């Protein structure tokens, strides 16, 4: 079974975000980066499927050179090889164009399964996987939390709202968008890190037809949301003093103790 996993590099979740001068995106200069959360789970599930059924796991990342960190980490965890679609501005693309370029990058692989995260932690479109499935002509399932690939058909458990679940069956090849928590993520071992050095990373440019033309959605301005609630901030930066004030307020003002 050949599995392609789409993994995106995003700003570290604990990073303090600053908005750039043009107010079109964040200041990227001094940020630290990590792999998009659900993509890490998509990789883990792919590795487990390969261990069970044999085959190959191919990682595909679109982004600037710094995104190689995601690829190297995935190879160290056990992915077999990688495709790096080198593109500097992925945020300006919007979800359709991004999916178009990714589709052209992976189409020739003829994978049995394409796995993506359910949504990116930065843009949060929650679309790239589904659009990709449509462009590749594959059936899809979103927000998947269990995969059974042992039968002729693929059988997957989807999370629905408020504690409901549903199983879907579909033929392969197919595309799945993976929800965080599907399985526990492994760490890269030293052996894995050494082995990764010999694995293939193929760089490709965005296919020209796909990357032409404007995106259908354009960000005109970004800003910090206006606060709608008057929060009483306590302690003025001193956590201990804040704690003392809070205890008092909880008793005398909110009367919850």
């Amino acid at each position, binding site marked *: 079974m050949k599995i392609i996993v789409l993994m995106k590099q995003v700003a570290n979740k604990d990073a303090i975000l600053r908005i750039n001068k043009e107010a079109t995106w964040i200041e990227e200069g001094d940020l630290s980066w990590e792999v998009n959360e659900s993509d890490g789970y998509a990789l883990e599930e792919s590795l487990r499927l390969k261990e069970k059924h044999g085959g190959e796991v191919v990682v595909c990342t679109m982004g600037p050179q710094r995104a190689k960190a995601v690829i190297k980490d995935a190879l160290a965890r056990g992915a077999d090889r990688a495709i790096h679609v080198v593109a500097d501005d992925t945020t300006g693309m919007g979800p359709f164009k991004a999916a178009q370029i990714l589709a052209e990058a992976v189409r020739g692989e003829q994978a049995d399964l394409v796995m993506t995260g359910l949504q990116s932690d930065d843009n*949060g479109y929650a679309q790239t996987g589904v659009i990709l499935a449509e462009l590749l002509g594959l*059936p899809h399932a979103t927000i998947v939390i269990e995969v059974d690939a042992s039968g002729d058909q693929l059988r997957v458990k989807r999370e629905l709202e408020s504690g409901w*679940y549903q199983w879907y069956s579909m033929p392969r090849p197919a595309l799945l968008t993976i929800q965080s928590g599907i399985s526990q993520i492994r760490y890269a071992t030293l052996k894995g890190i050494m082995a990764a050095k010999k694995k293939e990373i193929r760089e490709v440019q965005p296919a020209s037809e796909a990357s032409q033309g404007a995106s259908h959605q354009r960000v005109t301005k970004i800003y*910090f*949301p206006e606060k709608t609630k008057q929060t009483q901030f306590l302690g003025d930066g001193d956590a201990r003093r*804040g704690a003392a004030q809070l205890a008092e307020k909880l008793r005398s003002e909110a009367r919850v103790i």
Partner: protein
Amino acid sequence: MPNGILVFAEHRDGVFGKTSFEAVAAAQQLGASLGQPVTAVVLSTDAALAQQVAPYKVERVVSVESPKLSEYTPDGYADALEQAVRRIDPQYVVMPHTYLVRDCAPKLAARFGKGVISDCVRASAGDGAATFTRRIFQGKIDADVVSAGEPPVFATFQSGAYRAEQAERGEGSAPVESLAVEVGEIRMKPEPPFQEVKQAVDLSRADVIVAVGRGIKGQEHLKLAEQLAEVLGGDIAASRPICDAGWLPIDRQIGSSGQTVAPKLYVALGISGAIQHLVGMKNAGTIVAINKDPEAPIFDIADYGIVGDLFEAVPALTEELKKLKG
């Protein structure tokens, strides 16, 4: 010329959710400010369900019908919605940002060569076109987005962005038109939806909840939160990543894919406040947030906030409370 707003009213097994009427409210307000009529669309096997939307103030309700629409599948819904959109030819297609819409709307939009302006929190109109605001970086930043292409423009609205009660009712009943559609091969076969066996912990009755997020850093630090919960006489809960990591069982998870709670006191420790978490706890009486990031969205719904390191604040708070309680 494409004109008007098409709003998709979603139902599950014949029941329209609150979010569908939130979407109707969004479409009505957008329609009013652009001076454009609103058409509601219901997918079903027959016209009976569409009648439930007819009391709302819309120009008409289109009942999109096929025997293959008896249950939701992305293939079936994308085919049906594509034909409805081509027939109605609207300028905007408005949908609620539900799991079902997340599953089929991008597929639908892709057939028009575009994506969806997804998970919007508001829209405004000027010069005959709409500007949509979506939350990016998990709620930390707002982005104003305009459509740059030809209509139709597809947009989804976040749960709670509009209130269902804002959906206006019309004077009479809106006309219901049937539109029979051709649905092609459906590749995915759904089994009936189900709930997991009853959860061991029911947090919906708790008076006090101390919830931990990724800021707690490691399972070994959970005891800090447990000690605080103990002096407060409360229960311990968590954001999703804590349960994903297996540090707490899933029945302690609060949010859209966990439990919905409304305690008298909710203390959020190292939780950023993503929308999927907020929907599970925003009705709590008093909300306290301790977070080192002053811009964390959790502060937007907190009554009391401490900006700082939880590893300092939490032990101090536990001590102070012990003193107060004597």
